[in-house]
């Protein structure tokens, strides 16, 4: 049973069929098998948040999920969110506010921030901090990231930032 198992899933709207070893986690499956390298691998034990993706519409740590567990699921990565234009405004706000330096945390940060903005239209800074508390950034000191998310929330409400 350690042999590769067949899985069928949807990744960024496209059907994917693959054979994967049970030990392969979702992050490595996306990066190594599908070459979707926007999902970053940092700590590999669920602490840093760099590997955050959406599975069936909900954010998960892709390093803490096995690829075999995604059989029948719909997975969305930063590439999907980016290419569809879903988070174009959020990405622009990150750029404008200089909310990234090295950019390693940014894909996970964007996925987590978009998750919050989908659930709450007008989160205050404390809520933004709380929702992003599982995503580490070692460059920015977070203030600019909070600013960018807050600005995007206000803009989506149709108000001036």
């Amino acid at each position, binding site marked *: *049973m350690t042999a590769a198992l067949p899985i069928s899933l949807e990744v960024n709207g496209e059907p994917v069929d693959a054979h994967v070893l049970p030990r392969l986690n979702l992050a490595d499956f996306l990066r190594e098998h599908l070459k979707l390298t926007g999902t970053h691998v940092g700590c590999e034990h669920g602490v840093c948040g760099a590997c955050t993706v959406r599975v069936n519409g909900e954010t*998960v740590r892709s390093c*803490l999920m096995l690829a075999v567990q995604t059989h029948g699921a719909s997975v969305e990565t930063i590439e999907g969110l980016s290419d569809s234009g879903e988070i174009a405004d959020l990405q622009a706000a990150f750029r404008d506010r200089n909310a990234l330096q090295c950019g390693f945390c940014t894909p996970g940060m964007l996925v*987590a921030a978009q998750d919050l903005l989908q659930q709450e239209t007008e989160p205050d800074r404390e809520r933004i901090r709380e929702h992003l*508390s599982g995503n580490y950034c070692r460059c920015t000191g977070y203030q600019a990231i909070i600013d960018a998310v807050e600005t995007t929330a206000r803009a989506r409400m149709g108000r001036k930032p």
Partner: protein
Amino acid sequence: MKASAFSYARATSVANALELLVAYGDKAKVLSGGQSLMPAMNLRLISPELIVDIGEITELRGIAVRGDVLSIGALTRHVDLLRSPEIAAHAPLLTEAAAHVAHPAIRNRGTLGGSLAHADPASELPASVVALNATIVVSGQTGERRIAAGEFFTGIYETALSAQELLIAVEVPVAQKNSAHFFHEFARRHGDYAIAGLAAQAIVQAGLFTELRAAFFAVGDRPILAKAATKLINIRITPAVLAEASATLGEELDPQEDQQASAAMRRHLARILLVRCASALLGPPAAGGPV
């Protein structure tokens, strides 16, 4: 790091999962939400031969009220606890506790059954089910066992569950009239493991505790149901009463020391939690100024 190689079986029912657990014994590990198991495997702290994935067993899902009992399926995720109107109405302590478990992406996967079976002494849900006087329902080849939460946790990552059994549900007595709860933890950052925490369930009548179950976490090898809380029952809470209860608590606890806090600091924080719990549920102490 990456997990070492293992075999994988997607269990189709509780009976199927039990067959696999009986065949493999402690060489198998049950995969529920995976939010503690996967880190341990990725860090190679454990290397099971077989992973039994129970994630697709629908009979382990669901939250239902049956008479005076709130039954919560083992696969109920932390995010489900947070959003459930039944939990908010009948066991609001769990709603509050779940908000302190890690971060949103973890709460979307991690499950109640997984957290209890993992039995990390610093985690929120084991202490909460002890405070709620819940019953843990486990299934084995010979049938079901019902274990009082207070007897379920036996040490660091150790429980009364055998390697051939599966935790299938938690039964919580529905909150009575006049019941009140308190949950607080001290942690370096939101979502981190607690340095010291308290989950408490009480019945308050005419300004007195007629019942108080105070379960401390991260201050011992398992959730500690404080005997000191009995000193606050059916008595008007004064600074002197609180001081005596908190002194008793300090003697009762034997916290571990680690990088985050010394034993003395944990003991101190636990005392503060007890005082805050009494103040939050009954109002400030009767006379003599702040404690």
